[in-house]
């Protein structure tokens, strides 16, 4: 059976923004920039060597150890030279899970403020979730996001559309049309599809369009609004807990459906060893299954909640230390494909409440790279592997051309010093909401420059 590939159809003159994502355009950038004296790291080619990258307009024109400040010919006078001072130059990060408040809850976050946080964090593409008001479940709303991003965002914005209307979990959305107008994947956001038939049909229908289904795996009947891991800590704190079984039951059901339908499936954010084993088994069977983990679940465990610290109230919840270690192991061995920030801005009003009543979620765009580097500095995950999980892998999963250093690829780049220490201060964060679990914490590794489509967006253009 031939897959129904929309990409190969001709649909007139409508531009397909989806593949690259929308983004604000400045006045014409310099004709070219040569980045020299950089430690190039590219997960696709495996290159890890000192050299340079030549950018022409919005693409990489050349790269490699042969490029130095002396490489420019007289004819290249209009090319700027940037000395990277030996810092790492890698593909810009692609953050596969970012919640925003636009439209509907702009007091939490807008595309503009999220994109500033992204640029400051070395993230050149943010994948925004459809959990907004209204929900991004129709063509006109995908178009709205793309246009708002084009006019306001410093980085690329790719849109994941809702898998069901209004995220109601009952009626699937127009995958074909939404995909054509730029949706890069389909998800039910923070809610899981309880109705097995709907999930089955979604996977089956998505297969015809080679579309990706991204699912939050949490059995709604086993979930409590408290969203704290069920165990000794929740017992001592006197909070109702949610066991990891809520996640694995849903994940195992989904894998069965993937096996019968052949639809492409991505578990948005796994948190525990049991889920990791389910994913490993599915991959061993050759099923089209991938998964992600949030930086928070690689970094923290349930004990960090301490005395009811609501900045550590997340959904899915922080688990045990053994589960956190399993997540680290999964990223290290490649069982877990991508690392996301899970950026979820919540204002003080909904966080400054008793734990059970507080909103779940943490901002993370700006700290994603530095927090991931902790695992590198701790000797747990090789740096190249970490970069792969935040660049090449999400690019491949979502069909983006970025996420790699290669000639002709988009010039979406990050330059960072992996060693520079800094203290996170919430007043310095660019996100409109300041709910960072890293607040007052020390991180090692600092973004020096973020280049999006060939132009430097961080430090912010004046």
């Amino acid at each position, binding site marked *: *059976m031939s897959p*129904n590939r929309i990409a190969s159809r001709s649909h007139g003159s409508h531009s397909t923004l989806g593949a690259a994502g929308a983004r604000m355009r400045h006045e014409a950038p310099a004709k070219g920039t040569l980045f020299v004296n950089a430690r190039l790291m590219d997960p696709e080619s495996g290159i890890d060597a000192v050299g340079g990258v030549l950018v022409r307009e919005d693409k990489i024109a050349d790269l490699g150890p042969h490029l130095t400040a002396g490489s420019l010919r007289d004819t290249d006078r209009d090319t700027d030279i940037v000395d990277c001072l030996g810092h790492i130059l890698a593909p810009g990060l692609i953050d596969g899970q970012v919640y925003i408040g636009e439209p509907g809850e702009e007091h939490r976050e807008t595309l503009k403020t999220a994109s500033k946080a992204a640029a400051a964090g070395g993230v050149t593409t943010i994948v925004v979730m459809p959990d907004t008001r209204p929900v991004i479940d129709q063509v006109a709303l995908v178009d709205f996001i793309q246009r708002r991003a084009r006019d306001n965002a410093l980085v690329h914005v790719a849109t994941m559309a809702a898998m069901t209307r209004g995220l109601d979990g*009952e*009626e699937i959305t*127009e995958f074909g049309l939404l995909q054509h107008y730029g949706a890069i994947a389909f998800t039910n956001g923070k809610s899981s599809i309880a109705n097995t038939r709907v999930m089955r049909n979604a996977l089956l*229908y998505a*297969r015809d369009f080679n579309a990706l289904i991204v699912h939050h795996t949490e059995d709604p009947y086993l979930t409590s609004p408290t969203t704290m891991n069920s165990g000794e800590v929740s017992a001592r704190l006197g909070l109702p807990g949610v066991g990891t079984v809520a996640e694995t039951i849903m994940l195992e059901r989904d894998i069965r459906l993937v096996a019968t339908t052949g639809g492409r499936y991505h578990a948005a954010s796994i948190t525990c060893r049991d889920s990791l084993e389910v994913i490993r088994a599915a991959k061993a069977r050759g099923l089209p299954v991938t998964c992600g983990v949030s930086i928070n679940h690689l970094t923290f465990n349930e004990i960090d909640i301490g005395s009811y610290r609501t900045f550590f109230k997340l959904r899915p919840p922080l688990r045990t230390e053994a589960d956190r270690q399993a997540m680290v192991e999964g990223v290290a061995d490649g069982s877990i494909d991508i690392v996301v920030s899970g950026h979820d801005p919540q204002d003080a009003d909904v966080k400054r409440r008793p734990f059970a009543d507080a909103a779940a979620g943490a901002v993370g765009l700006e700290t994603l790279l530095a927090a991931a580097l902790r695992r590198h500095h701790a000797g747990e995950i090789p740096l190249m592997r970490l970069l792969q999980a935040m660049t090449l892998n999400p690019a491949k999963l979502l069909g983006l051309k970025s996420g790699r250093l290669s000639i002709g690829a988009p010039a979406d780049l990050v330059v960072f010093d992996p060693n520079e220490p800094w203290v996170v201060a919430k007043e310095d964060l660019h996100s409109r909401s300041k709910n960072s679990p890293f607040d007052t914490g020390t991180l090692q590794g600092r973004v020096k420059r973020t280049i999006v489509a060939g132009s430097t967006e961080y430090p912010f253009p004046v």
Partner: protein
Amino acid sequence: MLADGNLLSCETLSHPAIVTLLDMADAWAAKNRRPEPVKSTILSGRTLINLFFEASTRTQSSFELAAKRLGADVMNMNVQASSVQKGETLIDTAMTLNAMRPDIIVVRHHAAGATELLSQKVDCAVINAGDGAHQHPTQALLDALTIRRIKGRVEGLLVAICGDILHSRVARSNINVLNTLGARVRIIAPSTLLPPQPERFGVEVFTDMVSGISGADVVMMLRLQTERMSGSAVPSSREFFHFFGLDDEKLKSAKPDALIMHPGPMNRGIEIASTVADHPRSAIREQVEMGVAVRMAVLEAIAHQLKSRAGVQP
């Protein structure tokens, strides 16, 4: 020609049986077109009951007309107002009707297999006019006749059946008849509207309309049976039309002389564009005309078998 004197399914119709029925139907079609009235006594004194548990206009009236042209007494059971509404089971209804000693019962029922069950309980001939998503034999025969009359043959033609295959008795019946007659059959639908293991029907399966109808001699559209939708099989009629509706653009990938067919009733703008429905190559009205001829042929074939039954002369 017809096993047990019934017509319940196309699965058991042999190649010679189909060809004979189509030849007979051809003859009736010619007679139906003549200005003088068709007066036949083949079924005179015989009683035919139209027992429709599911609403129908064209099939029921087509059977009624066919039977009357052959001289039968026709009774239309209004099931909506009958004892079925009072809770009578299908078998009790069958036994009751059987006691009235009809000669032929034409049945449509929403449940697959209902006509088969009913035929086991009555002594008269039973014609399946559609049982759930299972079979609709006279539709497939009239489609084959329409194709044969316009194209001159069925064998070797590429026929693309598009739309809601999963819920379609028309598709299943047509696949049987067209395969038996030697056509090459393709089915085209979104995966959510395909039955499991569709390739086991002896067809080529496509989920892309343009490649599916590419080079087709016949494009047969099915009605999107919205009343049978459950669990979100198709997100919207807008999206369905965009990807699976037959419009002028998609029709270009079929052969230039491709025939356009639809069993009716059509949802214009959902599975077929108005311009295509009213296209010069649309055979949709011819299909309705052939419906009467095919049903006359089927009734005639059954009449011959009625006569051979012992002791049931009126």
